[in-house]
């Protein structure tokens, strides 16, 4: 009997009136866990009952503790007829099962009914006493921590990153069981909610067992999904990355690896969640700003170093010393090395998208695989072999693609499905990569990181270097010497599914790039349907790719991060939506423009038209470069010394029959202009494509958007955040259905949605929409549903002021800073924010000052204490940086002494919220799809939130139609997530994701139904400003800025 679950029902409030006669309710509560049920007394005639029950105790196996949810049902007592249910609360007690997370769940939960929505609230206290289990053959896996976050959680350190874990469980869908014909919709919905809750508990437990088997203690990047296969069943599957995590205890590691130093390191590269670390800046010695990864450094000090991994030496040598040709053997060696680390693993996949520094060595490119399957009834739910086999097949394919790219691992890995009737498309994608074996094995942590980092190639470009052997390339590609270190080869564009690595050097800002595509398909049954879909897929992928490439060029950028290609299948069409964040990597060559080539060169008018288009495209590129501040320095060709001054024109995607989507470049030496990307307009389709390229409107001034965690080029975030979900359903009625009209409609739908978001969030300007996540569904014929979840974060306006001033001042600035820019170019982005960020107030002052005095904004420098700079001149890069700083300092001396008070005062004002309704007891819970809360520090992870809700109505019109229904439901889902987090003692949800939003309506019957599945990590965050003085006070730590919904007039 390894666990005792204790539950106390305290009180209810705002209950609905259940007795029309008295306008009151006689409420009581049933508490159910497993097969045991307890009841409270009836609290008669009250809408705010005070039960104050005894402790209900359940003695249960920890296996059950993991699988079962706690079910609390509030009922209205009725003497003569059956008791009426008011609603339910499901509480996942998993967070109570590991020692470091929450110890008690206590608070107000919304009472939820699948037909009526939220009906009042109930106050519950839940505790668990766990006894030690000595049984070696146990079935439970209590204690394994789960994180949705796709990077190493902030207050942990990765000792070992073990690798991929997956599991799936299947069951019959209650909605499709015979009994569903005779039971009420409510009973059916509740059966479904309960089943899915049970299944996800079971799944998590099974994954946990695998984790223990792998000697890990946590799953990071845990992604759980439901496949509603209809008649053939219900599949719950999950993937994740097994890690051994160590909690960073603040006291022990304070001198070396406390957040300030680590964060300072990270900030310049935009990975760090806490842009306002300046609060701790002044007290931190500057030597912490070196490139060492502090946590591991301190670890190596602590543990007795036994076997330093000697194999690392050749690898590092390769990084810095050897040129391209020598690279081969070293690479082979490296591959061999890491191969051993990975070979015992079936799938060397990692669901992480951001990594500890030094983990990611090289990135090969995106690998993806899709397969079309026909669903059949799952005969034996306990042996879900077919589904397992399907996924195994796909993963195998991914693995072989990665191998072809010379990579032994896949990072940023994810899986998804799209189901329509009995056809299912399974998709998997990731980024082929070469990893540092240090993190992959036990006992190799002493790989003396500090020393190594000094020796490696400049960290800002290492990951761009090709992992494959240049002379033995898996496909013809256009390679060039790295623009940063000039020692290794890089491709001309890089597509990845991961976040921008912390150390990446970027010029300018990034932007959201989307490729949208529709393809009609004939309605067909079974095999024929599957075949036609399989036939369409490669073409879709090809076109999506071409669109992405074109749009990327149009933005003047050369790399995509966070690429996510979603293919959705409907009755009579396929939809493709690819989202990614484009950036300009300094290591990669400047992208050539787009050149249009007409097909009929003799036609004068046509020629004119083509040249007109060409001009438009060129103008757009120029405009975009200005908009995103992409101004890479011109480098004379000789310096690059490319051994292949090859002319290159077309990048084309070659695809194997199995729908592999490796990026394959075809070398075509026959064509004209160097570096230009040629679009041939040979038919109207091509014309359409070019037109559609130009229709994408940039966001209005003051707005940026990206689908990665953070936006390169912006780092002074404020704590003003707004997470939102927006849903649009569009009916393609009265439209002549052709591919063109479909494309246009879909494109308009997405663009209008974005425009609408910009308008709604205009009060947050200057702001950036981060982690913009689009999902497309085709719930019916000719109906498209687009769901967007993202977070808008306001950043400091002084910087925005700057960006808007850039165009005006560009010329001025050119003249005065030309030389400096030449000197600093590759280092600008890492060196400047590096030192400036910790001292952000000073920077603010400067920026403010410069905006007042008219000093060119780009000269913003920092008032850093230069005296201690000598400490950090221990590496080449540090030296150069110092130099850059000195130059900058020189040019800004005059502005440094200006007034300091105003921006700070203003900052304070902004954060002060007016507590006019003093008796508010509802604590604020922030939600974000990012892994951090800007301006705050995560002090504790309380456990995973994974919730599934169904809402149904039979009075659609009365509830405000479909919009009213879904609006209320999504608001309810947010409310329930917040309530659970608050009850765990948390004040924020990070890595929040709405994984599913299935909406079905039947307007004729006045009915609608919606299923929503959300997940995230419940955390306690402390505002950075309060970190030093105030102990953790979840309820007050984060005060919602009052301006969240303000309207600018």
């Amino acid at each position, binding site marked *: 009997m390894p666990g005792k679950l204790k539950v106390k029902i305290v009180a209810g409030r705002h209950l609905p009136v259940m007795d029309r006669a008295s306008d009151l309710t006689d409420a009581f509560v049933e508490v159910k866990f497993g097969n045991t049920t307890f009841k409270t007394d009836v609290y008669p005639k009250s809408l705010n009952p005070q039960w104050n029950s005894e402790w209900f105790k359940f003695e249960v196996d920890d296996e059950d503790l993991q699988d079962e949810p706690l079910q609390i049902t509030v009922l209205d007592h009725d003497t003569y007829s059956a008791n009426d249910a008011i609603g339910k609360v499901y509480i996942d007690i998993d967070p109570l099962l590991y020692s470091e997370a929450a110890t008690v769940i206590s608070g107000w939960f919304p009472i939820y009914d699948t037909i009526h929505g*939220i009906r009042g609230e109930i106050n519950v206290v839940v505790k668990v006493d766990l006894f030690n289990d000595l049984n070696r053959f146990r079935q439970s896996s209590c204690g394994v921590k789960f994180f949705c976050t796709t990077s190493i959680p902030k207050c942990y350190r990765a000792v070992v990153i073990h690798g991929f874990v997956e599991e799936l469980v299947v069951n019959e869908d209650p909605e499709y069981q015979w009994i569903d014909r005779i039971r009420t919709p409510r009973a059916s919905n509740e059966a479904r909610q309960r089943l899915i809750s049970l299944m996800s508990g079971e799944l998590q437990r099974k994954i946990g067992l695998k984790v223990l088997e792998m000697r890990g203690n946590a799953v990071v990047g845990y992604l759980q999904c439901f496949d509603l296969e209809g008649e053939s069943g219900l599949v719950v599957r999950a993937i994740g990355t097994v890690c051994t995590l160590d909690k960073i205890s603040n006291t022990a590691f304070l001198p070396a690896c406390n957040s300030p130093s680590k964060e300072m390191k990270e900030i310049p590269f935009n990975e760090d969640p806490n842009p306002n670390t300046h609060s701790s800046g002044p007290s931190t010695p500057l030597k912490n700003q070196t490139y060492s990864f502090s946590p591991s450094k301190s670890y190596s000090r602590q543990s007795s170093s036994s076997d330093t991994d000697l194999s690392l030496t050749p690898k590092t040598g390769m990084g810095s010393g050897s040129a391209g040709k020598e690279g081969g053997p070293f690479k082979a060696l490296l591959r061999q090395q890491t191969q051993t680390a990975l070979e015992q693993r079936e799938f060397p996949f990692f669901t992480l998208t951001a990594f500890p520094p030094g983990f990611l060595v090289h990135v090969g490119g995106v690998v993806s695989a899709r397969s079309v399957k026909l669903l059949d009834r799952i005969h034996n739910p306990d042996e879900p072999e077919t589904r397992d086999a399907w996924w195994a097949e796909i993963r195998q394919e991914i693995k072989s693609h990665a191998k072809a790219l010379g990579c032994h691992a896949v990072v940023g890995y994810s899986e998804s499905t799209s189901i329509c009737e009995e056809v299912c498309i399974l998709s998997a994608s990731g980024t082929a990569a070469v990893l540092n074996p240090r993190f992959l094995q036990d006992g190799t942590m002493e790989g003396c990181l500090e020393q190594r980092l000094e020796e490696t190639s400049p960290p800002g470009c290492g990951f761009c270097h090709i992992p494959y052997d240049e002379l033995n390339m898996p496909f013809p590609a256009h390679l060039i010497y790295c623009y940063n270190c000039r020692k290794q080869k890089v491709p001309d564009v890089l597509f990845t599914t991961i976040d921008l690595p912390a150390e990446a050097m970027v010029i300018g800002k990034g932007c959201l790039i989307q490729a949208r595509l529709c393809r009609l398909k004939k309605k067909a049954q079974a095999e024929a349907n599957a075949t036609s879909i399989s036939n369409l897929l490669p073409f879709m992928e090809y076109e999506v790719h071409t669109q992405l490439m074109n749009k990327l060029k149009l933005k003047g950028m050369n790399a995509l991060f966070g690429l996510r290609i979603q293919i959705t299948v409907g009755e009579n069409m396929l939809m493709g939506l690819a989202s990614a964040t484009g950036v300009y990597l300094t290591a990669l060559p400047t992208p050539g423009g787009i050149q249009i080539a007409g097909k009929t060169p003799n036609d004068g008018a046509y020629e004119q038209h083509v040249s007109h288009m060409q001009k438009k495209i060129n103008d757009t590129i120029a405009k975009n470069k200005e908009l995103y501040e992409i101004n890479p320095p011109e480098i004379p060709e000789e310096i690059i010394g490319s051994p292949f001054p090859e002319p290159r024109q077309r990048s084309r995607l070659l695809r194997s029959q199995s729908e592999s989507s490796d990026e394959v470049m075809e070398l075509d030496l026959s064509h004209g202009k160097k570096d230009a990307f040629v679009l041939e307009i040979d038919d109207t389709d091509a014309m359409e494509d070019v037109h559609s390229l130009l229709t994408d409107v940039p966001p209005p001034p003051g707005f940026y958007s990206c689908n990665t965690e953070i936006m390169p080029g912006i780092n002074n975030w404020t704590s003003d955040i707004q997470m*939102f979900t*927006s849903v649009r359903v569009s009916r393609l009625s009265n439209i002549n259905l052709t591919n063109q009209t479909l494309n246009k409609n879909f494109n308009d739908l997405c663009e209008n949605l974005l425009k609408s978001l910009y308008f709604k969030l205009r009060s947050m300007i200057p702001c950036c929409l981060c982690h913009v996540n689009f999902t497309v569904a085709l719930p019916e014929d000719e109906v498209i549903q687009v769901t967007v979840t993202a977070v808008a974060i306001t950043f400091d306006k002084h910087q925005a002021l700057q960006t808007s001033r850039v165009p005006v001042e560009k010329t001025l600035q050119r003249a005065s800073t030309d030389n400096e820019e030449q000197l600093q170019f590759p280092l600008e982005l890492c060196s400047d924010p590096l030192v400036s960020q910790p001292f952000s107030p000073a920077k603010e002052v400067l920026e403010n000052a410069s905006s007042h005095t008219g000093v060119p904004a780009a000269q913003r420098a920092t008032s850093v204490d230069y005296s201690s700079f000598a400490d950090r001149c221990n590496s080449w890069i540090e030296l150069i940086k110092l130099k850059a700083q000195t130059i900058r300092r020189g040019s800004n001396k005059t502005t440094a002494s200006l007034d300091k008070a105003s921006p700070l005062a203003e900052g304070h004002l902004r954060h002060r*919220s007016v507590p006019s309704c003093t008796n508010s*007891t509802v604590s604020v819970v*922030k939600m974000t799809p990012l892994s951090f809360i800007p301006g705050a520090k995560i002090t504790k992870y309380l456990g995973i939130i994974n919730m599934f809700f169904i809402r149904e109505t039979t009075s659609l019109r009365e509830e405000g139609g479909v*919009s009213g229904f879904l609006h209320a439901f999504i*608001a309810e889902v947010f409310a329930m997530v917040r309530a659970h987090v608050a009850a765990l003692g948390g004040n924020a949800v990070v890595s929040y994701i709405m994984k599913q939003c299935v909406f079905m309506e039947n307007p004729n019957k006045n009915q609608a139904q919606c299923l929503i599945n959300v997940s995230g990590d419940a955390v306690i965050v402390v505002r950075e400003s309060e970190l030093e003085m105030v102990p953790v006070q979840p309820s007050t730590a984060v005060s919602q800025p*009052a301006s969240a919904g303000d309207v600018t007039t």
Partner: protein
Amino acid sequence: MTNDLDIFVGNTTLIDEEVYQLWLDGYSVSDAVSLRLRSGILEQTGATVDVLQSDTMDHYRTFHMLERLLHTPSKLIHQLHFQIPPSRQAMLIERYYAFDEAFVREVLGKKLSKGTKKDLDDVSSKTGITLKSCRRQFDNFKRVFKVVEEMRGSLVENIQQHFLLSDRLARDYAAIVFFANSRFETGKKKLQFLTFEDFAYCAEQMIQNWTLGAVDSNVDDMDVDLDKEFLQELKELKVLIADKDLLDLHKSLVCTSLRGKISVYNEMEANFKNLSRALVNMASKLIHTKDVRDFFIDLVEKFIEPCKSDKWTLNDVRLFLTQYTTSAHTLDAFRHQALWDRYMSTIKSCLLKMYHD
């Protein structure tokens, strides 16, 4: 291509104050959109009409969902459904319960019944306030009235506690409740020159001095009803006009002290008996509900109008009323000093407040 469904839900509920006002003012979505269009918002933001339409719809939906909670503001504060920062909650409540001067003047003192509600379309066409907005304001009055009607303790505090209104707005509601309860007539033509603020001030004075709660804050502390015992006692004041000697003495005392100070001495002297009779008669009749209703008409007809026709200044009125009140204390035969003060202090404050054009 039409958007069947178009929603935006923020973790922190997005509230646009401008749209909120349009909604409160009772405009339909399409009216609100065209009003917003006229404000030039599209030019400022570069948005399209579609965007504006969808945005307005979204906000209207949100407000519609919030309305249920706004009916019991304490629920809005404690609910978990919408995450709204406290300052915004306060704004939502305050604006929801705000009312139009033109509207309140129409309804003040009327019974908050279904009948009155039916007449709201007249009020709407008369004031130019949309019917929807009139209904909201009327329902607010009624809701507040229902909740605090039977409640003990300070009326203002009760309102503030239950509806979380600002001090000022709670005071206004106290006046509205007080007027509705006693059904003071405020709509007559003669009273049109009086503003809601005038009445609210008078109400406050009466609540402070003439209700049950005014004398004893512990027992049966009721702010809504006038103190019946007090009204009964007011009959005793009749002696001031019934007793000829007393009346003459009172007049001479007032005249002596006001000579040379008041600019309308002769008129005052000539009118003294009329004015005194008017004030004392009003007092003695207040026990009748009907006379309570006509309280303001009586004040205007019997005191303000005569004074105005004789061109008394506000200062003259003040001097007169002060002297008139204090002089009564020196009348040895008059023994109802406390009662007199309780009555006259309020009458004086009311008259001074109401004595304007």
